[in-house]
């Protein structure tokens, strides 16, 4: 009797597990650069909302520090857990090759989101970037130019000296200033690095102001740097003399826009990266999207999206500019 009920129970258990397996939703994980980074909260929001709408299971994980190898154990754990899709903001362009290959060998779709494995693109299936990073430098120069009347001294306050994205944008800024006659009267006097620390960014900004008394504009293409630079300008009360702009988060810059310290700055929607990643991944898994260069697909709210060279996908064509008129429309 006991034996029989045990067997029955076992059978029921197997049947239940089978049913659960059949209805198992797609498991998507996003591995951020590090925890506690407000930028990733917004990307994660896009993943979450899209998974809620499409019925998939989403999890966000990230190491404590943004080191090159710190993401490897997280990727291994997710392979073990049997996820279907790994989205990752890689901390290194080459340290993850091996473990990402392992994931793909198990049939996991690997997407880099908000950063790519430059030079090692063959180790992921596709990349989702907010904009084509080639235009960021150009657009930022135009932004600061429009604020200072296309004439006078400008400086760049960046993150760390080895930050790959920032360095790419700085090259773009230099090229634009050198080659486009529109900016011939603008002079880049210094490029300094605040290491994405408020203290260091502040001392660098103060030093720029002391060393270049005629400085008209500062481009800070980093969220920590632009807030620190704005704070220096605010506390010195020189907003009409020195224009701070760059790339920032609306949530961190709102006060500076409202009190006129910063007239305008730029970024993209990190939220849309997560939103697009989920729609793309589910489409590839169910076969409705072909992950091939040149193929196109529709994403709700974003419209028609094209897969560009190197299986690279952008969520928007141009940077978004934030100013006093529109800043309250953004909740990230």
């Amino acid at each position, binding site marked *: 009797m006991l034996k029989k009920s045990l067997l029955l129970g076992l059978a029921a258990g197997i049947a239940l597990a089978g049913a659960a397996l059949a209805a198992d939703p797609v498991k998507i994980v996003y591995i951020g650069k590090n925890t506690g980074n407000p930028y990733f909260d917004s990307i994660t929001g896009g993943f979450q909302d899209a998974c809620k709408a499409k019925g998939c299971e989403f999890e966000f994980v990230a190491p404590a520090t943004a080191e090159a190898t710190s993401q490897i154990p997280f990727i291994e754990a997710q392979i073990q857990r049997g996820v279907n899709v790994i989205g990752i903001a890689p901390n290194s362009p080459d340290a993850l090759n091996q473990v990402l290959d392992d994931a793909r060998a198990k049939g996991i779709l690997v997407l880099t989101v908000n950063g790519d494995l430059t030079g090692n693109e063959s180790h992921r299936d596709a990349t989702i970037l907010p904009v084509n990073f080639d235009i960021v430098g150009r657009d930022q120069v135009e932004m600061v130019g429009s604020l200072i009347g296309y004439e006078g001294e400008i400086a760049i306050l960046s993150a760390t000296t080895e930050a790959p994205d920032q360095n790419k944008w700085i090259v773009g800024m230099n090229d634009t200033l050198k080659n486009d006659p529109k900016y011939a009267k603008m002079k880049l006097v210094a490029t*300094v690095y605040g290491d994405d620390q408020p203290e260091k960014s502040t001392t660098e900004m103060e*030093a720029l102001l002391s060393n270049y008394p005629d400085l008209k504009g500062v481009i800070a293409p980093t969220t920590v740097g632009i*807030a620190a630079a704005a704070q220096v300008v605010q506390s010195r009360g020189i907003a009409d003399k020195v224009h701070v702009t760059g790339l920032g988060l609306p*949530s961190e810059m709102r*006060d500076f826009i409202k009190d006129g310290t910063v007239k305008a700055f730029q970024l993209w929607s990190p939220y849309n990266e997560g939103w697009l990643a989920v729609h793309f991944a589910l489409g590839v898994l169910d076969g409705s999207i072909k992950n091939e260069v040149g193929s196109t697909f529709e994403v709700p709210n974003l419209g028609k999206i094209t897969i560009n060279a190197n299986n690279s996908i952008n969520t928007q064509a141009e940077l978004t500019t934030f100013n006093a008129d529109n800043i309250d429309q953004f909740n990230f």
Partner: protein
Amino acid sequence: MSLIRTLLVRREAGIAVMIVLFCLAVGAFRPQFLTLDQLRIILLLVPLIMIAAMGQMMVIVARHVDLSIGSTLGFSAMVSGMLYRFDVDWFGFDVPWWTGIPVSIVVGAGLGLVNGLLIQLFRLPAIIVTLGTLSLYRGLTFIISNAKQIDRQWIPSELKGLSQTSPVFGTPWIIFIAFGVALATYLFLMHTRMGRQIYAIGSNPVAAPLRGIKVTQVTLVVFTISGALAGLAGILYASRWGFVNPSNTGSGFEFQVIAAVVIGGVSINGGVGSVLGTVLGVLLLGCVAAALPLLGIPGTSQAAIYGAVILVALVIDRTVRRQGIAGFKRVQP
């Protein structure tokens, strides 16, 4: 003349001379370094370090060390930040802007007391205990905050004003608070019984109980003060920078503070150290931090130069001291 001699034989003379020489040398290349404006920049850089350094100095004088202060700073700042962020959800009303000040101090004191209890109850070395709590307190900061930053809009503007508005001479409140803490520490160490006992414990931990000193009690007080001051530095971090981040806020802070304390002539072997020396050590670090970008030293070499300056300062200080005060050298027990 005798005043000058008294000053020269003081332990702090070496570091004071170094600050003057360093500033003059930088001023030779960048005259704007020797202006009141620059002094304001330097003074605004150092308050958090100075406040925490007072606690760290007492800990080191007592022949311990507190590696957890950066995480203590982060945790206590986060508790107050969350209070500002979620007060309406939790209590149904907005808490007054100054609430974070006592809250962070008390939270920091609590974490410091935990350090002290672990060290005293289990007879563990402070370096090991606080290495553990360095990680523990940082981890707890992630847990309570759900790894979310408290943004600028949640920090009350009156609190941010402490770092900007000024009672006199364009000197923001935060600078007065830092020097006030230094003065209070001086009075405590020099003019109270317990203050003197801290030196006695550091000089000779074995003999201290024989002289009737309640070592456990004093040690607990020292670590509690160190935590409380790190907590005060935490709420002032929110004031100065306008946000609290679970991973960045206070990260690596302990190294700056310990460097400042040691440059200020506090002996890592305990029993020796002064408030004046520590203040000078903090100011020297502030001068160096402000000078490097002004000199246009590239970002890639700044860290190396900063470290080298610390080592050079230590070597000069120890050399000058050994020769300068040889005749007055006290006999170490």
